[in-house]
């Protein structure tokens, strides 16, 4: 039996972290959770997940910075990063710049609201690669 892969879910919305975690656990992944960018980096360095599901707009350290720190670190750069972004698409009352998003090295992006089945497909694709 293959080892259950560890996925880190990072979002400042604890409800979303719970929803994604439950889906991942149902698909037989191990899950670690973090609720801001600083916690995420601590968890990434300590636990070396196979993949990080990473929100963009978060307190203390945003997702673009976390992604940069992962991809510029020789020991971490192989960790796949799937970014969640509510603001890449239509939202009612906010403004958003794509500038930083275009310059980061995330492995994939998925818009919020997340289609959990689509997220699972993306995760499986990256973990197979």
């Amino acid at each position, binding site marked *: 039996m293959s080892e259950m892969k560890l996925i880190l879910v990072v979002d400042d919305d604890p409800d979303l972290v719970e929803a994604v975690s439950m889906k991942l656990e149902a698909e037989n992944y191990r899950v670690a959770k973090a609720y801001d960018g600083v916690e995420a980096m601590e968890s990434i360095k300590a636990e070396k997940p196979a993949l990080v599901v990473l929100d963009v*707009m978060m307190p203390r350290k945003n997702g673009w910075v976390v992604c940069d720190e992962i991809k510029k670190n020789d020991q971490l750069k192989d960790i796949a990063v799937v970014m969640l972004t509510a603001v890449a698409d239509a939202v009612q009352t906010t403004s958003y*710049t794509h500038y930083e998003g275009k310059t980061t090295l995330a492995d994939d992006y998925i818009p919020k609201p997340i289609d959990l089945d689509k997220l699972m497909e993306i995760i499986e694709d990256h973990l197979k690669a």
Partner: protein
Amino acid sequence: MAMKQIRMNGIRLSNPQVGVSQSCPDGAASPSVYLYRLLADERINITFLSLFFADDAPRINCCVSPDKQAKVEEFTLCDDSGITCRPRIGTVSVYPHQFSFSALGYLLYVFATERFYFHQMASSGAMLTFVVDYGDQEKIAAGLERHLDLPATRTPLRQEIDADEILALYKKRPETSAEYVESKVRTYGINLKPGQTLCTMMISGDALADWGARIQTLEESRLRFSFVSAETMPAGRIQLYFLCGGEADGADIDLSVFSGINGCQVSLRPDVCLISLQGPHFGDRYGIANQAFSVLTGGPVSMLLAACVGAMIYIVVSDDEMHQAKALLSEVFETP
């Protein structure tokens, strides 16, 4: 009674907020305009909401940004609005509660024994959020830190910048900024949890520790709560509402757990449904609560309770009305 300490992942503190509440003016069955509608019309975001329509006296409580204080104070000048303001409040959120009676009971026990006062409390899927006086917020966070089993690195996190400040930062890159409009508000889905029992309790504030200790004992049953909401009433009494799994989950609530609690009044209403919907950054966007509630209150569905906590909206209706409620909500919310 021995209390079982609970493990939590974190504590989150809000910036200062203004509390706005609406209750029915004397003799009125309902306000002429609901508070959530007034706030939406003024493009004021609601960061927390608890709504109680299950009793004879409908009440709505909201938290909004302090820079909207002057505007919401204007609402109070209207004689028949039933609106009052409370400046300088804040929220303390603890997560994840895992729908555990042990967690709920322990937190209320801690509030009671430490003499922490809350105005309202409501759950989302992950968080239990307490509305407290802003001056008490740090003290409460420190007290919870002492009592809860928290990861060493996860000290209480204050939301240092709010959504408006984040937007201002992004707008500094004008060549790529854009504004979008959703024709229909997108969600992760509208979920129904029927067959719940709504348990309503009125307890005196000095019985809260006893109540918290006793409700922890339900953890050993197969019962789980799916939603909880509370409000401190005049004279320090606390009105508590919680939904728990009915026979569909193979467990019923044993009211004998609460017998003998000083001044405790309990009533049960079976066959209610918890409707939940969650969307991206719902907590940072104005008008979402109004979209959900106006479509229901304008129609044949009677909301019993509702809450907006974080990015989640919870609405409690009777089982008989759940499909109609979902159909109405689907008119204004897009589901995957």
